[in-house]
């Protein structure tokens, strides 16, 4: 067995077990940690698949950015979860069996036709230079720009959603009442300099 194969199995086991931790852990913080190790394992697999730039992006964006975002939100919400796997309205066991069947459906046909495509890799496959040249070519530039706009919209939307609570009509009325009362008590509007 080649060394790369052994590393592949190791990384796969890390990813799968971390993903299982994400699904089964009781505390959300442990889920976030498991998520980070899933991402790191997948980054290693990307290296094995000659996608070097993608591995770096995976570590930077996912393991560095998304996981930390999850951790911050968990700290902000601080809401313990008791898992009750025998909930009244969701037959969890049935769903789990269905998921296993789905897994068999996904993986089964792969074993039926084992085909080994061996194409020689062109020089510089998956490097930042080759990927960048392909990304900024006329083929993919529109998608690239569209994703940039999408990211901008996402940023604006998240700030707008998380920001100040918008004044509802009832709130506005209450605030106006409060201001009127204050003006009645202090006719100068609170100006006590004189």
């Amino acid at each position: 067995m080649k060394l790369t194969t052994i590393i592949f199995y190791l990384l796969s086991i890390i990813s799968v077990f971390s993903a299982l931790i994400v699904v089964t852990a009781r505390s959300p913080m442990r889920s976030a940690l498991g998520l980070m190790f899933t991402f790191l394992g997948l980054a290693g697999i990307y290296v094995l698949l000659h996608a070097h730039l993608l591995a770096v992006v995976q570590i930077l964006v996912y393991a560095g950015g998304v996981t930390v975002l999850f951790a911050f939100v968990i700290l902000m919400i601080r809401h313990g979860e008791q898992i009750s796997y025998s909930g009244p309205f969701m037959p969890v066991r049935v769903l789990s069996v269905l998921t296993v069947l789905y897994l068999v459906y996904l993986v089964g046909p792969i074993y039926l036709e084992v085909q080994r495509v061996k194409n020689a890799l062109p020089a510089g496959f998956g490097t930042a230079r080759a990927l960048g040249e392909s990304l900024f070519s006329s083929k993919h530039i529109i998608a690239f720009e569209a994703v940039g706009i999408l990211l901008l919209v996402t940023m604006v939307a998240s700030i707008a959603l998380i920001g100040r609570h918008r004044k509802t009509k009832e709130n506005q009325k209450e605030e106006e009442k409060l201001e009127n009362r204050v003006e009645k008590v202090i006719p100068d509007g609170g100006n006590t300099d004189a």
Partner: protein
Amino acid sequence: MLNEISINHCLILSGILFSIGVAGFLTRRNLIAVLMCIEIMLNSANLLLVSYNRFNPSNHAGQIFALLSIVIAAGEAAIGLVIAINAFRLLGTIRTDEIKEMKDDA
């Protein structure tokens, strides 16, 4: 067990990860955990794109799609977490079985 990494290895790993994500998505009650399971599913799809590109390396389309998908997934996570925070502010909980504001059985 195959001796060398083939596309089948990657497909099987991707299928396993996707199934784990689906199972978590269906069974978890915490909104943040549900979002994490969605991230796992997106990652398994990315792995599929990259592995197909590895075994058909005439261009970089798969890797570029995976790159764009990573960007979209990051935006999706941000918006999802904002929704979770707003749900917690407005309703006081992020458990999906306790949020029944839109359910029409009252």
